[in-house]
């Protein structure tokens, strides 16, 4: 299991956190997704073998937000 932090742009309400965590946690290989509205970041715990960071960012993009990887 690995942890990655995504910086989110375009999140302007608390419920957006709901919109991001939902699809991420539905994806195979994602154990947990925690979005903090105030900090505008999403912390994802995932299995490297089944999903990549780029795929995670793509899921967020699909939900209507922009995700940037924080190294």
């Amino acid at each position, binding site marked *: 299991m690995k942890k990655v932090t995504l910086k989110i742009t375009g999140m302007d309400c608390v419920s957006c956190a709901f919109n991001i965590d*939902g699809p991420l946690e539905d994806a195979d290989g994602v154990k947990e997704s925690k979005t903090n509205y105030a900090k505008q970041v999403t912390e994802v715990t995932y299995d490297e073998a089944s999903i990549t960071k780029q795929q995670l960012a793509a899921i967020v993009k699909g939900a209507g937000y922009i995700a940037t990887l924080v190294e």
Partner: protein
Amino acid sequence: MNLWAIFITGLTVGGLSCMVVQGGLLTATIAQREQEKLKKRTLTTGNSLPILMFLLAKLFAYTILGFVLGSLGAAFTWSITATVIMQLVVVVFMVGTALNILNVHPVFRYFVIQPPHFLTRIIRKKSKSDDFFALALLGAFTVAIPCGATQAMMALAIASGNPLMGAAILFVFILGTSPVFFLLGYFTTKLGDTLQQKFMKFAAVVIILLAIFNANNTLALTGSNFTLENIANGFYCTVSYCNDLPIQTPVSSAAITIEDSGYLPNHLTVKAGSPVTIQLKNNNGTGCTQSFTIPSLGVQKVVPVGSTGTLTFTAPQKAGPIAFMCSMGMYRGTINVI
């Protein structure tokens, strides 16, 4: 404040400000549910039933909360200082919420209460297996996500000092907020993004206005004479002409009745340094008017609806007007010390 006024507050300001904080969760849940339905191609009917479930559960949860808060108010007597602090917190929270919607600075994001992760997770899981249950659960959990106006009403429920009155206050208020929630939930997929943005901006402005009104009441409650009305009145009297306060013979005892619109009479004259007795009779003053308060003297008398009470105090040595008001500073009057 009577129950009608509370209902109207809910219908207007409450609906808007609470929707800003809680409505997003409802629309997100409904949108997700619609998606599932779209996938299954079963989207044939409108989505009013789940919204009603949400609203009913919310109404139920808040009524219980009102009952608990009313009991709490009955158990403790809130000091004037405690009320002032509580109201100030509400004001700061409301302004913070509004400035966040208006995107003034990222720091205001911290004023928005984000429901705990485990809660949203439960709701999301439930929404897949059982729509109605999830939305009802979400409705009940909005108690944990209070918005500016709701917090003010919760304070009012505490101030009522009566479990049934507390329950009635929150019931009527939440009932008032329901139409906005219903419309938002029903048209969630139809309401365009731009329209929603405009709606939010409007709500933010209303919240700020309400916060100013609240702050002014709080200021009055500290015993300060620099309330907005007094400043405006002073300005008007400087540029135009005003009658001075009506000249009255000073009294040592007075009778004041409490109506749902405030105190009658709301002006009396007393002699400096003299003992004063006020007979209070509460005809139909519910909510904060039940607590007759003179902040500058630190005296307060709670007179529940239908009862009478006597308040005695010694007038200050210094001549000049002092204010009396309800425990939230909303309904006011003056005692002219001569």
